């Protein structure tokens, strides 16, 4: 079967021969025309258009962008800030990097339209510290846009002014969480804030109303203003509009990034047809569909899905349409779009131990259940891998995870519990037999911890 054609909107020019990241090239391709058009409109009309488009955030939670903007406190008299979340640190996710490197002006245009729509006078791009090159590219692009009158004073000759600055993180995953990000931008440790009262839309950066949006989300805003909400709505499925970039990594023949309308491909089509299927002589074993904190799916398992009319249908992993709602119906999430694939060479205890090492390292340490729990999960799973597994360890580790989720300041608690809970639920046998059954670990498996 041949792979279905992609619908590239955000990634239209990524890897295109002759396309460069300077402003001349961007403008030759129609760049900044949408901003020019947008600044002649009334800001509330743009907000309505974005709301009508049904755009859902691409940073992880899939929350409605229009609704988030509608929460902004516009009466406080305080300045409103917009922060671009370019932290991209969820393992398995690598889409924002390519936008920043190859098409930074697309992000700047989307950001400026969003700033204008929300009466923002100052925006920051919070970029992870590991992207020094990306930060330089953005700084250069912003300067080009400033010189051309698209950023800074009197944008496109209007009396609207708004500047953008780049702010670099320094290697901490928790800076991706929006309130941790705000603390970090204020020059502190990235300790997430308690919501309420610190909803960014009301008490965000410098205690002012603040919008935090993902890089890809803000690029979508540009295209919504280009094609109009009605046209945008036609892409994807109801409540899951627009395209989605899937970052596929791990054990497939053709890992990489692919853009499709939400729900237009199933997980099976994505992995088998688009990504060329499993490596030679291997079979798929498991897949994490939305960044490492999403719950894992086991090939061969079945899902009973309720239709709207009350009837039910059965799905295998291969049948799940790649959109927010379908993945949620299958008990996992679309998350950040990072699809991590594992074949039969992988032992699940090893894979979980690798993930747990990540979360234990990245907990900010404010909440006892998260700080201690993530470390215990790491210690137990690592101990298992290093030859001291006990048959009851699977249950033990799941027990720890159960004590974290729902008991913490931020969603990192869930992010670190879900892998353990789902791995043990779906591969409980492997956790049980790890202590005794040498066959449980394929002889040719790679070291993961």
């Amino acid at each position: 079967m041949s792979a279905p054609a992609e619908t590239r909107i955000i990634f239209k020019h990524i890897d295109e021969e002759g396309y460069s990241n300077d402003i001349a090239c961007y403008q030759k391709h129609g760049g900044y025309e949408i901003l020019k058009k947008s600044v002649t409109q009334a800001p509330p009309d743009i907000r309505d258009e974005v709301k009508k488009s049904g755009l859902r955030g691409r940073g992880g939670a899939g929350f409605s962008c229009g609704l988030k903007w509608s929460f902004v406190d516009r009466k406080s008299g305080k300045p409103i800030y917009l922060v671009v979340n370019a932290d991209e640190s969820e393992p398995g996710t690598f889409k924002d990097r390519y936008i920043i490197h190859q098409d930074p002006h697309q992000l700047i245009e989307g950001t400026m339209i969003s700033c204008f729509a929300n009466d923002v006078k100052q925006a920051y791009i919070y970029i992870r510290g590991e992207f020094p090159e990306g930060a330089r590219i953005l700084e250069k692009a912003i300067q080009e846009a400033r010189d051309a009158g698209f950023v800074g004073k009197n944008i496109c000759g209007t009396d609207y002014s708004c500047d953008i600055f780049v702010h670099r993180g320094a290697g901490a995953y928790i800076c991706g969480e929006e309130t941790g990000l705000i603390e970090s931008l204020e020059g502190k440790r990235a300790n997430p804030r308690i919501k309420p009262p610190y909803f960014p839309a009301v008490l965000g950066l410098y205690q002012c109303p603040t919008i935090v949006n993902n890089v890809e989300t803000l690029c979508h805003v540009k295209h919504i203003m280009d094609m109009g909400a009605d046209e945008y709505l036609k892409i994807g499925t109801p409540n899951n509009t627009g395209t989605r970039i899937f970052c596929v990594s791990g054990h497939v023949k053709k890992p990489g990034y692919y853009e499709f309308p939400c729900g237009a491909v199933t997980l099976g089509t994505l992995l088998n047809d688009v990504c060329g299927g499993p490596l030679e002589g291997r079979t798929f074993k498991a897949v994490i569909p939305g960044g490492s904190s999403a719950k894992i799916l086991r090939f061969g398992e079945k899902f009973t899905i309720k239709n709207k009319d009350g009837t039910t249908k059965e799905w295998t992993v291969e049948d799940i349409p790649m959109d927010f709602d379908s993945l949620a119906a299958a008990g996992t999430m679309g998350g950040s779009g990072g699809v991590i694939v594992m074949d039969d060479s992988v032992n699940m205890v090893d894979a979980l131990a690798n993930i747990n090492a990540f979360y234990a390292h990245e907990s900010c340490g404010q909440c006892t259940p998260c700080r201690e729990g993530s470390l215990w999960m790491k210690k137990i799973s690592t101990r298992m891998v290093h030859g001291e597994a006990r048959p009851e360890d699977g249950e033990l580790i799941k027990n720890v995870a159960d004590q974290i989720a729902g008991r913490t300041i931020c969603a990192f608690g869930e992010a670190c519990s879900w892998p353990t809970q789902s791995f043990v639920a779906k591969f409980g046998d492997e956790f049980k037999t790890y202590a005794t059954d040498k066959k449980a670990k394929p002889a040719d498996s790679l070291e993961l911890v």
Partner: protein
Amino acid sequence: MNLKPETLARIDEVITHYPEKRSGTLPLLHLIQEDLGYISDESLEWIATKLELEPINVYEVVTFYPMFRRKPIGKRHIKVCRTLSCALSGGYRTCAKFESEFNTRLGETSPDGEVTVEFVECLASCGTAPVVMVDEVLHENVTEAKAKEISDQIKAEAAQRG
């Protein structure tokens, strides 16, 4: 403290990006680390004074973010991604190759002071795993063979420097 004039100019400029000086903490730490190689006690205090903070405010930031270091490292910094997608593609082997090429261990600097090898978490390039950053340059699909090539290159550059 001997900061380059261009570092000092950048510092004064970057502070103007924010309505509150404290926001300059991370940018100043980056600039000073790039200039001097690490964050000394003296740098900590200098930043605190510059931003009208207490030294503890800067110290707590330095100890939170993995990229800031309190000690000098090797001339070259090799950061190997250890997270799942890279590990699934052989990232641990890649790391071992660098360790053996430079006769050093994870987290340590080679005896000749040339390189420091470290594991880091996901570098957001999982589609081209395993990935490695050498100083500020990302290398993709770093198999053991490619790790050898990179190592040879680093050694050649070191030899040229004399």
